[in-house]
């Protein structure tokens, strides 16, 4: 039995059950008796077990770099099939997703009291969309999931978000969906070109990778993909949805957005820009790298001027994602690996920071740093955790972000020392914004009239500790992750045939 479809479908089924559970047993005042929450937790656990099964079924790489393959006809007349493939990259990103979902489940979603069942349903549906995006190797299916994950996220933001949620949600949806349409055109263009060339109408990733394209057409198609991913990632000129969405979203949704949703952009860039159009991507690389640097600096720069914690973190995400673009488009394996590590590490650090911001907001009912301060006395554990993740996000060596950033910078240095030097300025700015946050939130003198606060309970600390350990491992021992997620993306073209025939 192939685990991939189960992997994709499980969250949404679990979500449905969670929704039903809430209908059957409506929410009570006691959070621990929140039935839908338990269902969600159970779903996540089963999903994790399943994923663990997949992971440990493959101690050695069996057939090519693709670990699992699943194919089932869907719309035969269009050559569309449910094609799911898993390689190390998708596997590691799915692990990241699950880890963050656990973080959310333990720390954030339990506080939801309004329509908890629906919340969990939507949350898990988003997860389905994300996992599907990571696994799909049929371009239509990929697009399907790509769009699918927006809807529940939109609802999550629009219903459970903060004060200005609806505008933010609308902005988020419009930007990502609009750019998605461009990607749709690119997909179709590629498919039709392939059809004209060979007479075979198919959306299969591996088959399409062999299409011969004229340089102009190739550039156009790649740009379509690129813009969609750039919006999702986001890259600077098209990032404007992100601060609003991240700021206004409920905590769990912020985590999901920053932690995983952005990664789908990076994933897409690796798999569908660089892999599908390698030559064109190289031609385009200078522009993309330029955008990456601008993203790094601009995000960090603006992050320095924010008063709202979540907004600050959101801008820092832009900065970090700039590194990802930079790494991906250096064209070397090193840069790619750096980008992947950076994505994993950023998912953890930004996700955890959003959780901390959410916790603070739960207790203080504000995100304004001018009105928060001196939390260390009241909440030493929370503050220490916050410090840890802030430090991680400023690129402390030994933590995951540094490993990624260093590899990216090194790869960039190979390409252009000047760009790399300019980018290091981003690191200085990162120190400024991260420490600014730490100083204002945790270390400043206590504000007047602050209500007495409760520190994080030990259980939640344990969850955070988990993330910390992952970050440290990622920072000090990234080698397994690198070998793990490395081979598949770069040898796509070579193993095309094998991918199809894999059991």
């Amino acid at each position, binding site marked *: 039995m192939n685990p991939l479809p189960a992997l994709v479908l499980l969250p949404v089924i679990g979500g449905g059950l969670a929704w039903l559970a809430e209908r059957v047993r409506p929410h009570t005042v006691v959070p621990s008796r929140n039935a839908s929450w338990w269902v969600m937790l159970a779903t996540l656990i089963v999903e994790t077990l399943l994923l663990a099964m997949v992971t440990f079924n493959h101690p050695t790489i069996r057939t090519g770099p693709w670990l699992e393959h699943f194919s089932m006809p869907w719309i035969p007349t*269009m050559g569309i099939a449910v094609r799911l493939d898993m390689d190390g990259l998708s596997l590691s990103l799915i692990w990241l997703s699950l880890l963050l979902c656990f973080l959310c489940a333990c720390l954030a979603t339990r506080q939801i009291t309004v329509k908890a069942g629906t919340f969990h349903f939507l949350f898990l549906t988003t997860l389905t969309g994300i996992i599907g995006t990571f696994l799909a190797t049929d371009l239509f299916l990929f697009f399907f999931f790509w769009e699918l994950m927006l809807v529940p996220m939109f609802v999550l933001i629009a219903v459970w978000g903060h004060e200005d949620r609806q505008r933010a949600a609308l902005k988020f949806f419009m930007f990502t969906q609009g750019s998605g349409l461009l990607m749709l055109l690119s997909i*179709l263009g590629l498919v039709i070109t392939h059809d004209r060339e060979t007479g075979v109408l198919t959306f299969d990733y591996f088959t399409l990778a062999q299409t011969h394209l004229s340089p102009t057409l190739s550039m156009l198609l790649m740009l379509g993909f690129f813009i969609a991913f750039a919006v999702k990632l986001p890259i600077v000129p098209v990032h404007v949805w992100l601060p609003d969405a991240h700021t206004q979203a409920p905590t769990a949704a912020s985590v999901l957005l920053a932690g995983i949703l952005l990664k789908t952009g990076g994933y897409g860039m690796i798999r569908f820009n660089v892999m599908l159009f390698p030559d064109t991507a190289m031609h385009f690389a200078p522009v993309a790298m330029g955008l990456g640097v601008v993203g790094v600096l601009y995000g960090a720069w603006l992050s320095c001027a924010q008063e709202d914690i979540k907004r600050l973190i959101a801008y820092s995400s832009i900065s970090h994602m700039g590194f990802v673009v930079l790494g991906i488009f250096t064209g070397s394996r090193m840069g790619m690996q750096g980008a992947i590590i950076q994505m994993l590490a950023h998912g953890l650090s930004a996700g955890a920071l959003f959780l901390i911001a959410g916790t603070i907001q739960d207790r203080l009912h504000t995100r304004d740093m001018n009105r928060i301060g001196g939390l260390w006395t009241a909440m030493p554990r929370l503050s220490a955790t916050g410090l840890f993740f802030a430090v991680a996000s400023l690129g402390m060596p030994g933590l995951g972000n540094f490993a990624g950033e260093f590899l990216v910078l090194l790869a960039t240095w190979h390409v252009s020392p000047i760009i790399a030097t300019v980018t290091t300025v981003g690191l200085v700015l990162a120190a400024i914004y991260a420490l600014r946050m730490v100083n204002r939130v945790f270390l400043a003198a206590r504000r007047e009239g602050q209500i007495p606060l409760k520190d994080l309970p030990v259980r939640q600390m344990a969850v955070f500790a988990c993330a910390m350990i992952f970050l440290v491992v990622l920072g000090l021992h990234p080698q397994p992750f690198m070998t793990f997620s490395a081979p598949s993306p770069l040898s796509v073209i070579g193993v095309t045939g094998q991918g199809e025939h894999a059991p």
Partner: protein
Amino acid sequence: MIGHDVFLPTSLLVLCVGITVMLAATAWRRSTSRSFLTGMGTLLLALVFVGHHTGIAPDNGDSLFIQDQWANYTAILIMFSSMCILLMSWRNDANDRTTSLVDEYPLLCMLGTLGALTMVFSANYMPFFLGLEILGVSLMGLVTFRHRPAIQGYEAAMKYLILSGMSSAILLFGIGLAYGVTGSLRFMPPITIGNISPALPVAATIMILVGMFFKLSAVPFHMWLLDVMEGAPVPVAAFLAVVSKIAIFSSLVRYFGTGNQSPFLNDILYIVIILTIMGGNLLALRQTSLTRLLACSSITHVGYLLIAFLCPGRLQSGAITIYLLAYTASTLGVFATMSAFATSDGPDGTVIAQWKGLFFTRPFLASSMSLMLLSLAGIPPGIGFFAKFEIAATGVEYQRNLLLGALIIGSIIGLYYYLNIIRVMMSAPSLPSASLNRHIRPELMALVIVLTVIVVIGGLFPARALHPLLPVSAIPSDTETEMTMR
């Protein structure tokens, strides 16, 4: 050239009989619900008989009617929609039943359906014209059924009457020209022969096209739709948006065929499509009334459909088929939800602001409404997603770049106003109204559920709806031989 055959699709026959029975019943003893039930029964029967016909079609294609897969498909869609609309209006509180009986209402609905079916099955200008007018005149009657505020219904009907009369005149003039040029009433574009100046058939085609555009409400001819739909009762608006559009689109495809259009048509279609998509979307942005917004949305969707119409190719047939299905199901879904929302004393759901906070007070309705709207906007998991995907695919295959641009921009604008409704539903409810927890009428509940299921299942497994149903060419290829014979 009317052959002396009795080739007739059985559905038409069934409908005629049913309508006669209903008429007779009206004369005998008036009862609204019996009328509704008879109508539903007739439609069901007609649905059952949809593949059948009486008599034999003449070999030369000179019959009044034609029955092929395309006709059957659209007929099914039309009859299904009519049933849904009948269901919606059955106990519609907007129809004020305290003052008078409304047993004409189902009768008019049935007549309209008959007209639509006649158009769909017609292979000759004559039944086409008859069907068009039966549909049009019954709609005039139907539009006036709005009782609260009544005057708007009459105004809408008046507007519809004058404008549709005008468009009918244009259409008829075009048909007359075509007849004058070719001497045949066969349902196909006229082709120049003999010594008549080539401008005549062109003018004829254009006039027929304009007539059809009017009914389709493509953009410069669209204005009536908004007013008429707003003035009409909600189910009648659905009728306007779905049944009449499917019928006329089906005829359009049959008339012009699926091949390459002649260049002058191409240009006009190009312009009209762009105008339609942009105009419909921009117009929708300023609407506060949900029915008007849906009217704009239906204008836009016609634009999308026309893209597929203009891009002949392997994908065209599937695209049109699935798009029609998607459009029908989603639009009907929206209207069904609106009907379910309406109360006899409270808001009738035609103003967007009335939907505020629905997500909290009546989550089921809000969810299904959101799903339908998302499907209309072309977002998974609704069927509209795949439909739009197919439309885009046809455009890409034929490299209609300008149209694709319009499609993209239109979709983004469209996304905004569809999402805006969802946003309104998700904002916190303004007043904790006690009357909001009414239960929904069971038949509407069932209808909404069925449509939701169709939309979702169709979105997830669209393969079945992708059969190539379109007529390969409007009339079989013996056209030319016949022309030369003459």
